[in-house]
């Protein structure tokens, strides 16, 4: 595979948590990882193995936690996002985050989508109208909400709120979307909608998803990363990964006999 097919390259990444009165713990150990462009990559592994920590490192979200120390490099395209000279908000703009539970802005539906573009200085009404309509259409929300754009976003169902949050992330034109167990708070029908949405989005975005649910990872992934106690055990394209895993720990995990699940 050519290197330019890889959107995100993680090199020698080590993350430590340093809490007072507690032993420092080494959460991620020497991670080296390539994540392919415009594909959906799943990070799987047992609880507490550092999946979310790894995901957030691609967005420099650990910057807001005082007790987390990050060492190493994460490249998006050719750019090292941990380069201290880069403005962190510019980097985060390239990398959208969708979390376990949606937090709509305390405002109406329209303003939720327009929020990001406005942050970055877009003010023209016609331009914002277009962005809002496009993003809502891409997330299949438009038909459901086009007549009530001025209603508060919290009035939507939680599944709709999650799609609204995806639309909001798309509105700032990111290259990468980080999805942290985004269906875990949703009912089966909403989950299914989100899953099919992810499948359409992966053509245009590099999606990195953390999932607890093996079946979901199997259904959706192009590429899989198996993380176990802070180490990358195995990576590979989904078919290969699930059909002929190489490492014994991977075999155990995907056949469901991993202890501590």
């Amino acid at each position, binding site marked *: 595979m050519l290197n330019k097919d890889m959107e995100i390259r993680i090199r020698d990444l080590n993350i430590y948590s340093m809490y007072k009165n507690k032993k420092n713990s080494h959460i991620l150990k020497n991670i080296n990882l390539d994540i392919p462009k415009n594909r959906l990559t799943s990070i799987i592994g047992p609880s507490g193995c550092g999946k979310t920590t790894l995901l957030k490192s691609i*967005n420099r*979200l650990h910057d807001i936690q005082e007790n987390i120390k990050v060492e190493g490099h994460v490249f998006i395209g050719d750019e090292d996002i941990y380069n201290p000279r880069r403005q962190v*908000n510019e980097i*985060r703009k390239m990398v959208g985050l969708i979390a376990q539970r949606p*937090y709509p802005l*305390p405002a109406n539906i329209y303003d939720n989508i327009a929020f990001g573009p406005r942050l970055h200085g877009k003010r023209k009404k016609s331009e914002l109208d277009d962005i809002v309509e496009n993003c809502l259409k891409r997330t299949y929300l438009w038909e459901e909400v086009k007549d009530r754009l001025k209603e508060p976003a*919290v009035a939507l169902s939680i599944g709709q709120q999650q799609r609204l949050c995806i639309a909001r992330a798309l509105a700032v034109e990111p290259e990468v979307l980080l999805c942290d167990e985004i269906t875990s708070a949703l009912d089966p029908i909403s989950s299914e909608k989100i899953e099919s949405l992810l499948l359409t989005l992966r053509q245009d975005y590099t999606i990195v998803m953390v999932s607890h649910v093996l079946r979901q990872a199997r259904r959706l992934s192009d590429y899989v990363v198996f993380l176990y106690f802070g180490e990358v055990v195995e990576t590979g394209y989904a078919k290969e990964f699930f059909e002929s895993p190489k490492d014994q720990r991977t075999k155990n995990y995907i056949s469901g006999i991993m202890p501590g699940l």
Partner: protein
Amino acid sequence: MKKQNTRIILDKIFKCLMVIIISAVLLFIIALLIMLIRRSQLILSRYTIWELLFSSDWDPDKGLYGFLPAVTGTFFVTVLSLLIAVPISILSAVYISEYMPSTIKSYFQTFIDVLAGIPSVVFGLCALLVLVPLTRDVIGPLFGVKTTGMCVFTAALVLAAMVFPVIISITVESLGILPVGLKEQFLSLGATKWQLIETVLFRAAGPGIISGIILGFGRAFGETMAVVMVIGNKNILIPSLFSPGQTLPGIIVGSFNEMMSVPEHQSALIFISLILFVIVLFFNILANIIKNRLKSRWRYE
């Protein structure tokens, strides 16, 4: 089976006990209100409320009971102190909550809480020693005004200092309970820290911040001692913020010794207490309504 019964009986006893206690508290407030209303009857039978509130002559010896100077004095002192205190307190609170390293944060919060607990007479004394000369020698001349320093402006300054800790500690608390996930989602859209604070956190923590301001208002409005010590206590309609004035609580403190002898004077002072009581009650109810409105409007989950 027997054990089960004692548990249930205890359960009921404690429930009853709590109901009795809470009713007693409520009854006490109602009794206070009734007492104030009844003892104000005398003055209200001789003058109308409007005469009392909107007449500016105060001379109990001649039977003149105009509250207007004290009403306006109270108004200006309270509003000015909040105008000074609110922006400063909110910015301090944001710094403490969002920027300050957690190691010094807890010490700082303790320090703020101590500040909130200092007796007001101490504030008054410090103001007398520091703020009065400051207003007289620096701030007054800066505005081209001649003042003794014992004035409405100085009173507002000391009140602002007393209101800071109240607003700061409540604002810090309401910012602190916001979920990290909320911040992460908006930072991921490329918001700078200040954009996040301004557009998201202020709204999400809004109802809490409003409660803080209202509590601060209560403190400033009812504060007696520190104000009396620096305001100059002249019962006149203030021509400027740098002239001495009077507040409603100030009138009571200034003449509660004499009040026992003249029933009409006594009743006038009790009527002032009634006004204070009603206004505080009114603002607390209003604050609750506003808070609940904002809570449903600025809901983030």
